[in-house]
């Protein structure tokens, strides 16, 4: 097991996204000779900054860099590799149809002031209580997300029993009241919970956003509140420069540990025999890289249903992967602008992050459209203006709007054609123009990527950003019970992407947990 393959690698990581690079850096740190194989010419996956027009770039397909695990930053000394963090989430400007704005500030007191100006002092006070409640849960949630999910096969026995007991005790340490409240609110729909706290539509819509992004659920879908609680408790320190800065630091950390990183290297097949992984075969030429350890950061459905020889995968397991739900609901529109984008409600202010969405009802209606495979009348926009903090991403005086568009169906009725893509682009521009008049005159170029396009470019099965829904049934036993602890039934093959615990978003969690499990298993085998 410890022997390297013929061409000298002790581990191969498929995919050079943030999780693949994290896993590689951990493996390298443990002294393994690691190869990272990335299909695309650039590293980073959905965290990769993209130049979509000469001179205009984004900080990543997604732009939320507030959830990277502190543990990973420390373990891999990412600070030493050029990463710097700000201690809180960046402010976000929430926009509504009546031309109002609400700035969610990293400092709860700042947000409270905004809420008071928009609504009332009572609403602001409740926001304070809301944040206080979430911070009481934080320790437990972070612990839950950071530990390995239970193994159903040996539930409650041996060491696992001990872990489970400790988690149970941590839960009880929340106190009877908060513990019961957590049990109550986790399976709720987030609209019900936010309605218990607040009256202001714009505030509720703004808070709901991150919990719905990427998934096939609306604010009235039960189970969405768990995502809200997890997000609120797990996000904090933010990477300066966004996802692309994180990718740079991870790459340096992996290389510093001796990892070999190849781009333009598409894995076509995972080779295994007698239940044991032997290496990977690359596309175009059939180059084989042998390795007793393969970690795949791809969507688990791609790993099991495409990269492995289907006939050799246990039928029942294959069925479980087929049933793993994930149907993309996110599109991307990048705009190159020759003038800064100005929001009518905050004319004098530099805004880097903004969201539209006037009310939970508006969000739900947008979800309805996706559910019925249509384009929503009012798409919901999650806007990042990356040049604000990194002027190198646009020519001087110019600007970039990198926009995630939510509730856009992967399986649009009639399919995605150039015309439908244009339609989506126009819809996004006309929607954004309502909040930022003059926008369309300043557009010098645009890129529109449907969920299907994202699927193709980033290798996301059915275009799902999180490699599978964040739904209650797919959260802790993710993606299937036998693979929930990153090892798979094929010896030496591990999953290390967003399809594993704790799921998608730029956390580096799955990569670090998977690598730690693999290193430990290797050590135990001697």
């Amino acid at each position, binding site marked *: 097991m410890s022997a390297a393959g013929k061409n000298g690698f002790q581990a191969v990581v498929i995919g050079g996204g943030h999780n693949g690079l994290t896993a590689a850096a951990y493996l390298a740190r443990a002294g393994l000779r690691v190869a990272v194989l990335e299909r695309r010419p650039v590293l980073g996956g959905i965290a990769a900054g993209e130049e979509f027009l000469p001179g205009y770039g984004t900080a990543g397909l997604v732009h939320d860099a507030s959830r990277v695990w502190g543990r990973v930053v420390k373990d891999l000394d990412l600070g030493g590799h050029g990463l710097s963090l700000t201690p809180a989430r960046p402010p976000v400007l929430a926009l509504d149809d009546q031309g109002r704005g609400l700035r969610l500030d990293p400092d709860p007191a700042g947000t409270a002031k905004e809420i008071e100006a928009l609504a009332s002092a009572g609403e602001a006070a409740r926001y304070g209580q809301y944040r206080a409640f979430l911070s009481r849960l934080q320790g437990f949630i972070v612990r839950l997300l950071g530990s390995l999910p239970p193994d*159903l*096969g040996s*539930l*409650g026995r041996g060491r696992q029993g001990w872990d489970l007991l400790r988690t149970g005790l941590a839960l*009880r340490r929340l106190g*009877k009241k908060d*513990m*019961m*409240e957590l*049990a*109550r*609110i*986790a*399976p*709720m729909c987030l609209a*019900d919970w936010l309605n*218990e706290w607040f009256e202001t539509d714009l505030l509720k819509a703004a808070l709901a956003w991150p919990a719905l992004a990427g998934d096939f*659920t609306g604010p*009235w*879908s*039960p*189970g969405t509140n768990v995502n809200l609680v997890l997000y609120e408790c797990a996000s904090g320190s933010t990477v300066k420069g966004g996802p692309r800065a994180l990718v740079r630091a991870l790459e340096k950390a992996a290389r510093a540990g001796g990892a070999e990183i190849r781009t333009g290297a598409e894995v076509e097949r995972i080779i295994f025999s007698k239940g044991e992984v032997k290496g990977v075969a690359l596309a175009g030429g059939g180059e084989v890289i042998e390795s007793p350890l393969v970690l795949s950061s791809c969507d688990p459905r791609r790993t099991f249903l495409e990269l492995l020889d289907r006939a050799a995968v246990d039928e029942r397991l294959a069925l479980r992967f087929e*049933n793993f*739900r994930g149907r993309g609901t996110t599109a991307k529109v990048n705009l190159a602008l020759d003038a800064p984008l100005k929001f009518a409600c905050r004319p004098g202010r530099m805004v880097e992050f903004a969201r539209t969405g006037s009310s939970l*009802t508006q969000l*739900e209606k947008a979800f*309805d459209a996706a*559910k*019925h495979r249509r384009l929503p009348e009012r798409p919901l926009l999650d806007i990042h203006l990356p040049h604000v903090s990194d002027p190198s991403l646009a020519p001087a005086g110019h600007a970039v709007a990198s926009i995630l568009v939510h509730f856009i169906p992967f399986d649009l009725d009639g399919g995605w054609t150039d015309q439908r893509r244009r339609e989506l682009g126009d819809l996004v521009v006309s929607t954004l123009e309502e909040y930022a008049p003059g926008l369309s005159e300043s557009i010098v170029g645009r890129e529109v990527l449907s969920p299907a396009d994202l699927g193709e470019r980033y290798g996301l099965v059915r275009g799902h950003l999180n490699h599978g829904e964040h*739904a*209650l*049934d797919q959260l802790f*036993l993710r993606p*299937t*019970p*036998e693979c929930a602890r990153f090892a798979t039934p094929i010896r030496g093959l591990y999953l290390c992407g967003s399809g594993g615990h704790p799921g998608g978003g730029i956390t580096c969690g799955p990569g670090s947990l998977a690598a730690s499990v693999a290193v430990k298993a290797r050590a135990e085998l001697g």
Partner: protein
Amino acid sequence: MTEVAPTLKDNFPSGPFDAVVVGGGHNGLVCAAYLARAGRRVLVLERRRVLGGAAVSEEVYPGFTYSVCSYVVSLFRPHIIRELDLARHGYRVIPLDCTFSPLENGDSLARWGDPARTRREIARFSPKDAEVAPQFGLAMTKMAAFIKNIIDHPAPDPASFDPGQLKALWGLAKDFREMGPDLMYLHNKLLTMSAVDFLDMWFESDQLKGPMSVSGIIGTFLGVRSPGTAYVLLHHYMGDIDGAFRSWGLSKGGTGGVSLAVARAARSFGAEIRTGAPVARILVSHGRASGVALEDGWEIKAKTVVSACDPRLTFLGLVGREHLEEEFIERIKRYKFRGSSGKVNLALDRVPEFSARPGLGEHLRGDITIAPGVDYLERAYDQAKYGEFSRRPFLDVVIPSLTDPTVAPPGKHVVSIFVQYAPYWLKEGPDSWPRKREAFGDAVIDTLAEYSPNLKDSILHRQVLTPWDLEQEFGLSEGNIFQGELSLEQLFFLRPVAGWARYRTPVKDLWMCGSCTHPGGGVMGSPGELAAKTLLRSRSL
């Protein structure tokens, strides 16, 4: 079949009572029967002139007896039937052998008690689905066995340090583990997934998934694609009539027949039952319930008061805020009702025929569902989400007079139509329901007539019940037929509110026994039974 009990003050027995039960629905009666069986002096007070609550039969038009609200029996617990000797008191359920689902294209699907016959039907739409249907049934049956453990015992409180409850929790954990990883996994999915997503794991044909998925949404304000609806699919596999798994049935004489059998049993154990006795207040002194006051001011003292009403009515109505802590009131206020269903009861001069399967075949003697596909059902839900009743709703229809001639005059028929969605919270507010009642009834009839062309001409009488009517007439807050939504956050140790899921209340000597308590709604009798048994064990009575 309508049976009127003596009025309140006829031969009123002298006190003191050990327990007064507020509400003579099936749960109140079951609770009273168990208390009386244990030798306690019990009085049941029902506001209406008839017993049964929502499990009631009434002769609304001469000669026609309707199961006005609840219309099928499936979950009534067999041990309750045994322990209360209900068969001797007239409990009789006639099994429904078929679920017949006409489709929009003129075809139809019928599922029968006989698996081979069902298989042939499903195979017309998908041979693959026909093949996996028995596997699905087997998995569901296995899981139903675990759920029975849960519904037949009070819910243990995970925050408690009481050794008895910790033991019960440990027992559940052990049972869960013993299922093995595959069933544990499936359970996890069943409890959290949407009915459609869950069915998608087995089936491909929309014609099958539509009719199957609706059992997940009955009585809830959710769609078949809403997470958390899958577990109700199990109910179809828990029906336990005469030991035959998976069967639903009609009570002889209407659903009220169940309540009346329980009432007779309760009386046989010495319980006193009075109808036309509206309770206005639960008397509380020094933090203890001491009896009830009727609307006419008459006070009846008792050691214990057991309320079969829902928590809003019980605490904010009958007890009064002055006896409760602010935090408890808040929790009761945010307990969700949101009724979503209505009922249309018809008297017909002939049997309604369906063009998808002409003639008076066996398929009419079962359950008839208008649920011709998943998208149809989701569209019906989408309208309700924004405060309108569904223009083309999901319908669950039975024609009880075909199997039970006692409910209609010879040659005539009664038809019971359960309708979803009829949201209590209409855009214009719940009080606009009386103005919309008939339009709602028309939408229902129009929808059904698309499948049954001779329906409209054969209607003699029609009764339309909206959620507003259910609230006004039956005391169900917001017209919720389960006394509160059966969503995960309001089940098990959280029903009706955390910390008070074991039938006790913050008011000493006041207990709850309605569908708002564990294990929830449906005509199963468990809340009443478990409340009585817990109360007796507590030795406070």
